[in-house]
């Protein structure tokens, strides 16, 4: 949203092989930028073809991205960032689950791969910006400073997974899909109009490095199965599980507890204790959180200097909730105006001022309305 005529930039477009990043690259090229496409090879053992509709990083995706680049008429390369991805994203994913937390690898990838490893290399090679197919808006002020905002279309907004970007990273980011009120169907139409055959390609969901979507099996293969107890709030054993890492706070399905709760109400995961491999379950109201502490804050612009009121988003595709937040000793202290449910340590909290992303941090601990045993 610059007011001046846009400068011709050398842009490196990250192309996953999907429709969004292809249209983003096409729009950047059409805007007059000098665009080069790059597909990131993130898997150390790429499978030849997709299994089902999911997944990325396959040879087929790389081929699809290359075809899109050919149609757009831009150079295209494949960069091997598999080792960095394994170290910074996949290993972190295991470590977080093992510690009883629920990580979001997409944020991690944006922070460590797309807008770090990739961006650094791009800048060193003389590019000005990295372009992706994320739905988010960058607002540039006359003084050159930039703000990250939610996408014009809230339904597709992906600013949450970009909440980890600091101003240096944002300074070199380009999201051509974010500032248009286009539905996904319209993006597909646009892709078809541009001759991009990925127009009909299914959306990718879930976690790209778990091709079959079975996170549990993926974790079990690496972390093994370690039987432990499922207990109620009073500590009474209700059943067993095959590894505490396989649970997420607020989870209801897949607990496999034979006996129903005395009051007949559904039970949820309240707490995960990796130390004694115990999962505590209880009623929904025991999930109500009034406050949380989050670590590793990252600010998109200046860090707040005192307590402030924001809206917060606690998970991808989650709703907004009103909070007061303050930075104390490098930790983010957050209090909710109304209690919220299902807050999982390891997930990111992203703070917004209106549509503007203020910053993010990783949820470490929560305070419940009811203390968990």
């Amino acid at each position, binding site marked *: 949203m610059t007011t001046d005529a846009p400068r011709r930039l050398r842009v490196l477009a990250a192309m996953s092989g999907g429709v969004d990043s292809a249209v983003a690259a096409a729009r950047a090229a059409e805007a007059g930028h000098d665009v*080069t496409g790059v*597909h990131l*090879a993130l898997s150390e053992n*790429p499978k030849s073809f997709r299994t089902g509709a999911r997944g990325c990083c396959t*040879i087929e995706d*790389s081929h699809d991205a*290359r075809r899109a680049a050919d149609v757009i008429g831009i*150079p295209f*390369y*494949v*960069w*091997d*960032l*598999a080792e*960095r991805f394994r170290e910074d994203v996949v290993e972190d994913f295991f470590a977080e689950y093992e510690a009883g937390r629920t990580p979001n690898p997409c944020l991690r990838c944006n922070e460590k791969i797309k807008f770090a*490893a990739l961006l*650094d*290399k791009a800048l*060193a*090679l*003389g590019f000005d910006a990295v372009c992706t197919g994320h739905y988010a808006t960058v607002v540039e002020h006359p003084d050159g400073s930039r703000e990250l905002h939610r996408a014009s279309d809230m339904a597709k907004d992906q600013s949450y997974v970009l909440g980890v970007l600091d101003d240096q990273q944002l300074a070199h980011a380009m999201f051509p899909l974010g500032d248009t009120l286009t539905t996904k169907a319209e993006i597909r139409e646009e892709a078809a109009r541009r001759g991009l055959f990925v127009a009909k390609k299914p959306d990718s969901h879930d976690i790209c490095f778990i091709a079959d979507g079975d996170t549990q099996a993926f974790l079990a293969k690496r972390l093994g199965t370690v039987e432990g107890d499922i207990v109620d709030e009073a500590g009474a054993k209700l059943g067993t599980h095959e590894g505490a890492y396989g649970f997420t706070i607020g989870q209801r399905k897949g607990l496999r507890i034979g006996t129903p709760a005395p009051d007949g109400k559904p039970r949820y995961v309240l707490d995960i204790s990796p130390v004694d491999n115990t999962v505590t379950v209880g009623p929904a109201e025991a999930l109500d959180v009034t406050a949380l502490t989050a670590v590793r804050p990252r600010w998109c612009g200046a860090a707040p200097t005192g307590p402030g009121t924001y809206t917060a988003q606690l998970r991808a595709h989650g709703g907004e909730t009103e909070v007061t937040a303050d930075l104390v000793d490098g930790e983010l202290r957050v209090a909710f105006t109304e209690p919220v449910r299902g807050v999982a340590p390891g997930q990111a909290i992203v703070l917004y001022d209106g549509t503007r992303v203020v910053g993010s941090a990783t949820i470490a601990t929560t305070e419940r309305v009811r203390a968990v045993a």
Partner: protein
Amino acid sequence: MVYLDHAATTPMLPEAVQAMTAQLTVTGNASSLHAAGRRARRTVEEARESLASALGARPSEVVLTAGGTEADNLAVKGLYWARRDADPARTRVLASPVEHHAVLDAVEWLAEHEGARVEWLPVDGYGRVHADAFRAAVARNPDDVALATVMWANNEIGTIMPVRELADVAAEFGIPLHADAVQAFGQLEVDFAASGLAAMTVSAHKIGGPYGVGALLLRREYAPVPVLHGGGQERQVRSGTLDTPGIAAFAAAARYAVGHREEFARDIGALRDVLVKAVRAAAPDAVLGGDPDPAGRLPANAHFSFPGCEGDSLLLLLDAQGIACSTGSACTAGVAQPSHVLLAAGMDADLARGTLRFSLGHTTTEADVAAVAEAIGPVVERARSAGLS
């Protein structure tokens, strides 16, 4: 565009284009008995004679294929199967570790699926197999060798193998030696009869002919088991309807390439020397790959490693300036791997990641070389700042 990737493919010669287009509108299957078939057969056989003459072979020794990869597969697999069928003890395959993947992967496939025991021949720092090392490998047990395969000249670093000496060793022990001469043909004197080889691969599109045509030169006493079964064309060794236009064009290109080879090699070698000098001046720490002695390398090949650089970065930056070259290494899913050739020649794996191959050809001009000379210094500097990811 500055095109310096002729080892990947080189523009078709006008003579080849003319020969091909002349045949494209003519109907006739060379296996048919009627007049149209006879006419096609005549075109094919004249082309075969032309190719044989250009390559120092008999026409009956020319087995036409759909390219170099197929010819390599036919030689390696076909000779292995035939020799093993004749004597089950023959399961040892001797191969240089710097082969093109068309040979390398065929050899590895035999090891995985056909019980072949592969022995990779030692190479020196230029990637060259020496006759004494070959002799030692064969002599350990000449009776269990199915075949040996050593390329005539390397496609990445341009190193020329002592083919005649190696063939003498093979002949002494009565084992077939195959050479992939795809890169050598058109640049070096390639005479099949004089070489002493049992089998030799050539390809059309590397010498100014069309894609998808090649040949396996095969001494008449060898009858490899076919890879492709069908109508029994090409001495029952390679079935499939003959590609009359492609074959005619291949022959036209071969006639031209061999007829002009000496002056081409001299001129292109001189240009290559200018390029090497310029790159070394602009990037003094660049390491020349392969044999520095012009007599030991292909005249059109220049290969460098740039310490601290990623080959992909170098290629991207040159491509952005309209200069086309290659990193010279094979790709897996488009991802660059350190070249097996350089690793076999003992190069450090990190250094092997920062390579560029410039291969010159019949359209290369002094201006092309000057463009590289001007661009390479800043490109290397920039790629180095991006480092190894």
